[in-house]
């Protein structure tokens, strides 16, 4: 017996039929073909599956899809304007060389969205703390941290 859920995905009203115990990550990737969100561990440790639900970062590999009924979900696909113009955060990652294989990147970027939404001007320490739940096997994090601080500056400048 399946459940029907209705929710907002990247600003658009969306419906889906799901197995009752479906994971949000599977609903996004398999049912809705939004494959930008990645599964790195399936245990809530690596953060590659990070998306925003009602503005909060969560691990979609551990989030029951049934719980997003009525909620607002934001994935990596929702960031580029018109699906084409990269957001300031995305551009900052490219500019800073904060991407190697790219597998952790959607999760890193969504965590950045969450961080800068709460704290528009984070210190390096605060950035590193915010990345506690996001693992990267390629970069050593330095340029990821640079990217986030660049994004913060760009966004702040955009406001003044």
């Amino acid at each position, binding site marked *: 017996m*399946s459940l029907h859920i209705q929710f907002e995905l990247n600003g658009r009203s969306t419906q889906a039929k799901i197995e009752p*115990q479906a994971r949000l990550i599977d609903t996004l990737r398999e049912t809705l073909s939004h494959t930008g969100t990645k599964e790195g561990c399936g*245990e809530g440790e690596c953060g590659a599956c990070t998306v925003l639900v009602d503005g909060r970062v*969560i691990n979609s590999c*551990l989030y029951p899809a049934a719980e997003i009924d009525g909620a607002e979900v934001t994935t990596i696909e929702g960031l580029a304007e018109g699906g084409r113009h990269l957001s300031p955060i995305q551009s900052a990652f490219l500019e800073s060389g904060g991407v190697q294989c790219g597998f952790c990147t959607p999760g890193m970027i969504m965590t950045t969205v969450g961080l800068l939404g709460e704290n528009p001007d984070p210190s390096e320490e605060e950035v590193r703390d915010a990345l*506690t739940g*996001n693992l990267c096997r390629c970069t050593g994090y330095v340029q990821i941290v640079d990217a986030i601080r660049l994004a913060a500056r760009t966004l702040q400048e955009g406001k003044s």
Partner: protein
Amino acid sequence: MESLPYYRPRSLIDAFELLAAVSDARWIAGGTDLLVQARKRSQSCGLISLRSIEELGNITTEPDGGLRIGAAMVLSDVRKNRAVRKSCPVLCEAIDVLGSRQIRNVATLGGNLCNASPAADTAPALLALDARVELVSADSRRELPLHDFILGPGKTALKVGEILSALLVPSQLESGACGQAFIRKGRVKMDLAIVSLAVSLSMDGDRCRDIRVAAGAVAPVPLRLIAAEDLLRDTELDDVAIAAAKESAMATVSPIDDQRASAFYRRQLVGVFLERAVRRAAGLAGGESV
């Protein structure tokens, strides 16, 4: 084949009705422990979510200043709550180091305690606050001190049909200055605790009027270090008293060797953290307003 159900009751009454009606169903709150374990053990059963039940997701202040924290409130919301920040900073410190933001936006106090890991981050803080648990079923309500609730690794006093509905934190505001501190060590930030230690004390000038100390990850359950407390209470927290308390604490705990740390290292850290946390809490009690 019937797929396994997932229910989202809006009230405790509905939740208990579902439990009675659905064979082999379990409660789920944040699911950050439960879903991981279910996958590892290939467990399958119906799930009854506690996330949409209002009584389990809010915080109320009792007339005497105590707090009733809904057990299914997500940790990040508990952390932001003004009353919690004011009277339970040790709990805030514990939440800040639990998992990651992604986990804290979903995980709950109830889940952390019912999972009953010896290393549960919130447990030492709640023990230091002298918290009680409220347990409800379809036709009963009872309270237990937290130290009588966690019985062993993965084992609690929860009876079949019961829900841990709230944490009851007694009023921490007393005349005289209070201080709280929490210290925790993991290999990296997002790691199970190697050792955690929480202190809550109140000072009367230079004298420690009352103190509670609790440690995690150094015994089968998170535990109060009662003997160490007795050596610090009514002293001026001088070097002699602290040295005696450290020795007592290190003798009381029963850490194990595992892939994260040796028993020897953990035992050393208990002593180090006891001293640091007591001094920090006393400092907070001394100068600044709570």
